């Protein structure tokens, strides 16, 4: 059969998929042609900057052929061999449910009918016995792409319709900005990330120096933008704009365009920041006019920095000892920063560095906002910008992001979860095992800053504990913290029934009683826009150079007996009596058409043409005029950016931020209102030594600091070992004695002190766990720091089913602390982690 090609989309960009004889033969970046809209050009003093005429996708996006046909695909419905649904909950032995064997036992292939009857039967039993709230569910992020057929589509519609205990996600990629920076500059509707409009053009025109502070956009891609922004950083470099990197790891962006690397000690961001402020205050090199006009509470901050309020001047010498760098380097950094128009790439969305996922990272994120406030945040060239979003952008074509409502935008009757009980992702195992938990803060607090202070109790009075876990995806063992507790939870008899629905054998899959195989988005149709999450990240597709709306064309038949998620949920809805409500009589194709009709696409492209071609490149506006992020605020005028989610935009307070005072708050009035006595997230942020850092008692026993940023070659737990090609990248995984170990970077001094050589199998351990990894000896980490990416796709304990067994899959989050960022802040802090390393002789 002749070759056909299809267009689809991934979490790292749109792709063209070649198919011959029903099999995928190529996966290419989508290349634009002359019929597609022209690309934008930024003209800076006669130099013209224009992007490549193609989607520069993420490396993992090009592995989809291998991932679709991976040996780790789930091919058939399965039932655990020692799970008997006729057994009483918690029963063990023959004829029992044997929850204690989850993670240990094998599986039998069963038919779809048997699987669906079993799952629906258990759902009915549990709903009848305990109520709908006794079923909890949660989707993983990023394993597929699509507005309707994936997590915010099919999964969300099904569960919201039948009612369930939802698990609130924590903003795990930018925690400190979310829980902290919002109290300094608002932007809660962007979960603590600032707007980013036209920041590329501003940088090319105005910025003289870039400070990349715990920021690695070449790796984190502005989340979904693939490698599209890599060329921006080359433009900036080639224009002579230097980038200084502050990171314990000489990260990939530093490798690409770095000029200077300052490797300070993890957990000491705040100390470094306030010492920089000290230099500026004592040398008078900050913008006093801006401070007076656009900020609130500076004098109190100044008093803290100078030591007037606590007797400790935050001098460079003071910070040098804490941060493990020379005082003179801090002084030089402060002077370079203040003497140039400097953009701070501070690890917000776009760069997602690890510093914001540490103890008290609320304080350091606020301190970074303060530093730019002192230089005039929003003035030309002076920004907080991750260097991975904000090209010239036509926002006028409305098309929903994947998290913008899904089916609820287009259904006659939206599905709203009737159950009020909630769990919190980081503490689900604690809640299940203990039967009770309380916390404050709603996870994604995108509707109001007040959500930071919402109190939750589980079980909600009058509600049942959860008895069943319907897991969609399986990433948490590698992405949450102290994750051995997930193993313990799965093996608890309190979970009477566990289902897992996924495409691959992920690290939670084998803890299920019944496994339902889903197909990937290359095996079904869908509709989406590249890099557009929508919701709390409006105009997020500005992490790519072109807006590309995609009709995701089914390329091949589902592998094995796998089915589209939507089709699986129809079958279950049917058995539970919800089918008509679920589908409203639509085929999936009709839903796609409805989303097309909901959007502005009909004004631009005929539906049949769109479906046939597979994509549409949104044309740039004629006579495009940039509206630079926060320039309006710096200049004291009404917000003129397209940030329609800004609640004050278009009101008589449109020149204000969404803080209580409308200004950048050195002393947070929202914290003053709610938690004035909180000394860990005080209204005025301070440097607080980490509860697990170099000043901790535990440091004597575990003298290495582990950092585990977002991974370079996979997307959290996705791709990675599913793709043998990635396993051949020596900086990702190493083959040692026939096993493919995730690498752990260690400085030569630390390696030598432990008798470790490059390529040795090593045990990284602490009191929580031990993980076997391949030693990668490099000058690119600070001595005393070890670096191993979060997100291993494989959890492979030497003793399967044993929670405290050493893991050789590379799940370093088994080692990280489950403790929250601070007492009132439910953010995760995986980069506050002390460990020791030794050569593995096992």
């Amino acid at each position: 059969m002749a070759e056909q090609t299809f267009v689809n989309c991934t979490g790292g960009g749109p792709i063209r998929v070649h198919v011959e004889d029903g099999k995928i033969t190529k996966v290419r970046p989508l290349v634009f042609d002359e019929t597609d809209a022209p690309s934008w050009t930024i003209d800076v003093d006669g130099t013209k900057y224009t992007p490549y005429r193609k989607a520069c996708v993420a490396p993992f996006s090009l592995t989809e052929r291998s991932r679709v046909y991976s040996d780790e695909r789930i091919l058939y419905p399965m039932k655990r061999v020692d799970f008997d649904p006729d057994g009483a909950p918690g029963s063990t032995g023959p004829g029992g449910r044997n929850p204690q064997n989850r993670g240990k036992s094998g599986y039998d292939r069963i038919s779809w009918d048997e699987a669906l009857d079993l799952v629906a039967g258990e759902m009915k039993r549990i709903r009848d016995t305990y109520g709908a709230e006794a079923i909890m569910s949660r989707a993983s992020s990023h394993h597929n792409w699509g507005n309707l057929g994936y997590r915010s589509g099919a999964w969300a519609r099904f569960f919201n319709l039948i009612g369930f205990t939802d698990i609130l996600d924590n903003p795990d990629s930018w925690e400190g900005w979310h829980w902290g920076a919002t109290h300094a500059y608002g932007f809660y509707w962007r979960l603590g990330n600032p707007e980013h409009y036209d920041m590329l053009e501003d940088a090319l025109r105005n910025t003289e120096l870039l400070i990349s502070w715990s920021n690695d956009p070449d790796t984190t891609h502005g989340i979904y933008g693939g490698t599209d922004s890599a060329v921006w950083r080359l433009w900036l470099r080639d224009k002579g704009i230097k980038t200084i990197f502050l990171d314990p790891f000489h990260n990939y962006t530093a490798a690409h365009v770095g000029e200077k690397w300052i490797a300070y000690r993890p957990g000491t961001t705040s100390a470094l920041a306030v010492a920089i402020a000290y230099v500026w205050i004592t040398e008078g090199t900050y913008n006093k006019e801006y401070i007076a006009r656009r900020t609130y509470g500076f004098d109190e901050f100044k008093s803290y920095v100078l030591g007037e309020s606590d007797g400790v001047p935050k001098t460079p010498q003071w910070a040098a000892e804490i941060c493990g760098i020379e005082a003179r380097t801090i002084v030089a950094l402060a002077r370079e920063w203040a003497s140039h128009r400097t953009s701070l790439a501070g690890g917000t969305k776009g760069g997602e560095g690890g510093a914001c996922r540490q103890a008290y990272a609320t304080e350091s994120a606020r301190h970074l906002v303060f530093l730019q406030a002192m230089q005039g945040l929003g003035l030309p060239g002076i920004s907080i910008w991750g260097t991975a979003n904000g090209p010239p952008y036509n926002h006028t074509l409305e098309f929903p992001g994947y998290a913008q409502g899904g089916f609820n935008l287009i259904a006659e009757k939206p599905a709203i979860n009737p159950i009020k009980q909630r769990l919190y992702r980081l503490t689900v195992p604690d809640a299940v095992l203990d039967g009770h938990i309380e916390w404050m803060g709603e996870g994604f607090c995108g509707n109001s800053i007040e959500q930071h202070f919402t109190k939750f109790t589980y079980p909600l009075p009058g509600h049942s504990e959860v008895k069943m876990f319907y897991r969609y995806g399986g990433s948490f063992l590698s992405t949450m913290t102290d994750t051995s507790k997930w193993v313990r939870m799965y093996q608890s008899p309190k979970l009477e029934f566990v289902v897992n629905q996924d495409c691959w054998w992920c690290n939670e899959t084998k803890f299920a009683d019944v496994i339902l195989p889903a197909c990937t988005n290359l095996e079904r149709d869908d509709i989406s826009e590249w890099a557009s999450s929508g919701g709390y990240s409006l105009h997020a597709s500005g992490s790519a150079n072109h807006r590309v709306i995609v009709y995701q064309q089914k390329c091949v038949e589902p592998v094995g007996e796998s089915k589209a998620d939507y089709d699986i949920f129809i079958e279950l809805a049917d058995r539970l009596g919800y089918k008509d409500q679920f589908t409203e009589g639509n085929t999936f194709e009709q839903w796609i058409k409805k989303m097309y009709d909901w959007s502005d696409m009909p004004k631009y492209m005929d539906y049949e043409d769109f479906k046939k071609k597979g994509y549409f490149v949104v044309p740039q506006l004629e006579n495009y005029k940039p509206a630079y992020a926060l320039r309006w605020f710096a200049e004291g005028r009404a917000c003129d950016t397209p940030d329609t989610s800004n609640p004050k935009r278009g009101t008589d307070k449109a020149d204000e931020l969404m803080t209580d005072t409308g200004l950048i708050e050195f002393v947070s009035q929202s914290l003053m209102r709610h938690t004035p006595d909180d000394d860990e997230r005080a209204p005025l942020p301070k440097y607080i030594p980490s509860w697990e850092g170099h000043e901790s008692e535990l440091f004597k026993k575990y003298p290495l600091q582990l950092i585990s940023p977002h991974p370079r070659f996979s997307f959290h737990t996705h791709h990675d070992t599913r793709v043998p090609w990635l396993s051949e990248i020596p900086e990702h995984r190493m083959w040692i004695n026939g096993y493919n170990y995730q690498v752990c970077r260690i400085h030569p001094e630390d390696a030598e002190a432990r008798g470790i050589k490059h390529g040795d199998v090593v045990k990284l351990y602490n009191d929580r766990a031990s993980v076997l990894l391949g030693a990668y000896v490099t000058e690119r980490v600070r001595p005393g720091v070890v670096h191993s990416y979060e997100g291993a796709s494989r959890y492979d304990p030497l003793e399967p089913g044993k929670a405290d067994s050493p893991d050789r899959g590379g799940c370093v989050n088994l080692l990280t602390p489950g403790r929250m960022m601070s007492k009132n802040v439910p953010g995760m802090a995986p980069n506050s982690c002390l460990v020791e390393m030794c050569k593995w002789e096992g």
Partner: protein
Amino acid sequence: MPRYGMVVDVTRCNGCYNCFIACKDEYCGIARPGYSAPQPMTGQTWMKILPKERGQFPKVKQDYIAIPCMQCEKPGCAEGSDGAVYKRGDGIVMVDPEKAKDRPEIVSKCPYRVIYWNEIEQVGQKCTFCAHLLDAGWKEPRCVEACPTGTLIFGDLDAPDSAVSQAWKRAEAMHPEYGMGDKVRFIGLPKNFVAGAVVFGDKDECAKGATVTLEGEGREATAVTDGFGDFEFEGLPGGASFTLSIAAPGYMGQTFTVKTSKSIYLGDIILEKSS
């Protein structure tokens, strides 16, 4: 007929491995009849990435060198192969997937080590510049299409205005001493650097504006330290000896001998006040 060549601009590469993966995607498990037998899923890297780390903490540089087949004008692998390895009219060197069977000596003839032995097919294999795609009308191989940074520049070396011809003028052969007429050349192949950080000892302050001079091997270069007191000399030959002098008004100068057995970071150099 074009004469195909490639320039790899190492200074632009971000080490994303897209070229490496796109190459795997094109060939692993898929035969391109008449051009290549199926590549095993693992073990071969027709587009090889050589990561190159230089320097010492905290002055480190990381480069990635993308290495395909050099498509030599005088391919050593073709010598004595009786047509099993041949050069096409467009200069692409092909290992015939049929005629080259059971001839492992072809693999060892390549000094760049970019021919790989396929145990299953019992044949040597390598990069073909995606000749089967070029023959089907493609303008560039898969690796080039997948590159997001403009590192890989491909085209007709005989067309003087082509991007590759222009880049070629600035490019160098990886191993000119092999004398094989490589048609893949490189811009910015990492050499050795000498760097350091100068400190005014009396003030314990980064010495901005100090003059640093490097002499030796018939060259002399001068650098001025930046706001961190940092200086750097790039692109030095290996195994050479240089004299490095540091001068700043009001301070006693210093002179070192530096050997570039590798890239060297001298660390902090503390200047004392002249009396």
